[in-house]
């Protein structure tokens, strides 16, 4: 664990979802209003056809913090974060109620440009999914579709992104080789680099280590911690140790509902809800 966690703990308790049990803020309610949430979900219900997958979620994400979402498989974690970059729109027959605000602006509104939104809110998926292209082309992809950068600028950006993703040293001599020749952990860091290249403000991680070995997992976790300085990070995981290691705040989902949301230390040491406690102590899930 990192030493910063102690000092951070207190402030972390403050931002919490409306109508959800949370730890009392040590500095009172006033502290709450000082930090504008980067993303807010308000009264969000989500349906796959007739099936309601999310039930009245209210949740704020603070800038430059890592928020973990935990919960048993099928509880709606992926569904929820895929709303934040509107990926669920690719699934036919779905319906969303409520609003989701990014810097106070509704991203669900018809006027919102979804491509623009996805450049601001990047995503790293559960299974590493590099394109069957070279390492270089993978990272350059997001820059090329925007089409405004010169070749030289793209090259610099690719190098920079690979460095930020802690992959540069491993691939700098083989940028032209296929990304599919990399190991799983390297592929996932490549996906992170690819995401960083378009300069997002928020990065959504959906179980980024689910298919990786412990060493690769440790590297990714370390990387996520360094990214925290610049980005707002949301990480879905059903590995509770991982949530405890990397996150500042933790939300517990169960069957489409947000059960409890607060500082990570509090959620793991003194959860308020019986169901959270049961889950964390491994009594189910």
């Amino acid at each position, binding site marked *: 664990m990192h030493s910063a966690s102690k000092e951070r703990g207190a402030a972390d308790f403050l931002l919490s979802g409306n109508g959800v049990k949370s730890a009392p803020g040590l500095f009172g309610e006033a502290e709450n209003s000082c930090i504008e949430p980067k993303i807010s979900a308000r009264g969000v219900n989500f349906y796959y056809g007739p099936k309601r997958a999310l039930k009245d979620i209210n949740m704020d994400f603070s800038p430059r913090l890592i928020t973990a979402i935990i919960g048993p498989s099928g509880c709606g974690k992926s569904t929820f974060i895929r709303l934040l*970059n509107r*990926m669920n729109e*690719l699934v*036919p027959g779905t319906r969303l109620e409520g609003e989701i605000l990014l810097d106070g602006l509704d991203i669900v509104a018809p006027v919102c440009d979804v*491509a*623009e*939104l*996805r*450049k601001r809110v*990047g*995503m790293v*998926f559960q*299974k590493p*999914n*590099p*394109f*069957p*292209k070279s390492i270089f082309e993978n990272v350059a*992809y*997001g820059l*090329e*579709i*925007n089409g405004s950068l010169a070749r030289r600028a793209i090259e610099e950006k690719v190098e920079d992104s690979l460095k930020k993703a802690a992959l540069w040293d491993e691939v700098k001599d083989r940028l032209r080789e*296929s990304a*599919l020749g990399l190991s799983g952990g390297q592929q996932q860091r490549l*996906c992170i680099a*690819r*995401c960083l290249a*378009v300069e997002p403000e928020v990065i959504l991680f959906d179980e980024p280590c689910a298919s990786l070995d412990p060493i690769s997992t440790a590297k990714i976790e370390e990387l996520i911690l360094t990214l925290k300085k610049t980005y707002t990070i949301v990480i879905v995981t059903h590995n509770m140790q991982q949530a405890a290691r990397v996150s500042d705040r933790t939300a517990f989902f169960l069957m489409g509902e947000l059960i409890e949301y607060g500082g990570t230390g509090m959620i793991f040491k003194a959860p308020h809800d019986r169901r959270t406690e049961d889950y964390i102590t491994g009594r189910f899930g």
Partner: protein
Amino acid sequence: MIKRNKEKGIEWLFTALAFSSLVFLTGIVIVLVKEALPIFSTVSLPAFLGGESWYPTAEPPEFGIFPLIMASFWVSAGAMLICVPLGVGSALYLHELAGERQRAVLKPVIEVLASVPSIIYGFFGMVILAPFLQDRFNLPIGLCVLSTSIVLGVMATPTVASIAEDALGYVPRSFREASFALGANRWETLTRVIIPAAGSGISTAVILGMSRAIGETMTVLMVAGGAAVVPSSIFDPVRPMTAAIAAEMGEAPVGSDHYHALFAVALALFIVTFAFNIIAELISRRYRLKLGLSR
């Protein structure tokens, strides 16, 4: 003990069945080569392949198959010009744009189209297309390179469409998601990710469509016009290799030079289609490796 023997027997049966294709293939090659070889004591290989006169029943006979090769080549090339854009276009439409309901109708229609017997296509070419072309372009005869290309192209389209659509379907959904998540739109995702990823599969589709066009016989016999002359325009009647074999085999006395020459034509045809299929297989194997899919 009896049970053991029975199991062994069944195992042998299936092994034999599995190897029967290999036996057939070997048998075909042996017969083709054996029956084709004697012609080369009458004409040399270069004269056979490069000779411009195919008069197998004249006195003395001439066995130059260059006009037949050119006929097959032009007719297939023309068919490609039709079936590649149509087939690949349909595949892209089906894959990207068609809704569930359109797909549910179009996909089976394409499959049925692929299974329509070739004589029906030939019939259509003969009684509708050829008279139309004759009329429209004021030709002495409507059966020509153009009519054959059109019919063969339409025939090969469903094959190309169906295989290309499968290739597009094999592209993992995760590529599409990754692209969208980076802010790409549908068009960018299609042209920069999906089509390149399916590229080798699409080329396999094209090659298989092509080998279908080259090997097609019945249609060609009906609509190509039959003249064994190197075509100088798309309105010339031609006699592709398959048509020559089908039309003449019945009349060539067994064991005659003509008979052996037709076998040599068949061998040439076999080598060409075999090469196409090998190329298709190599490409699709590389493509599977590229996508990281194992067989």
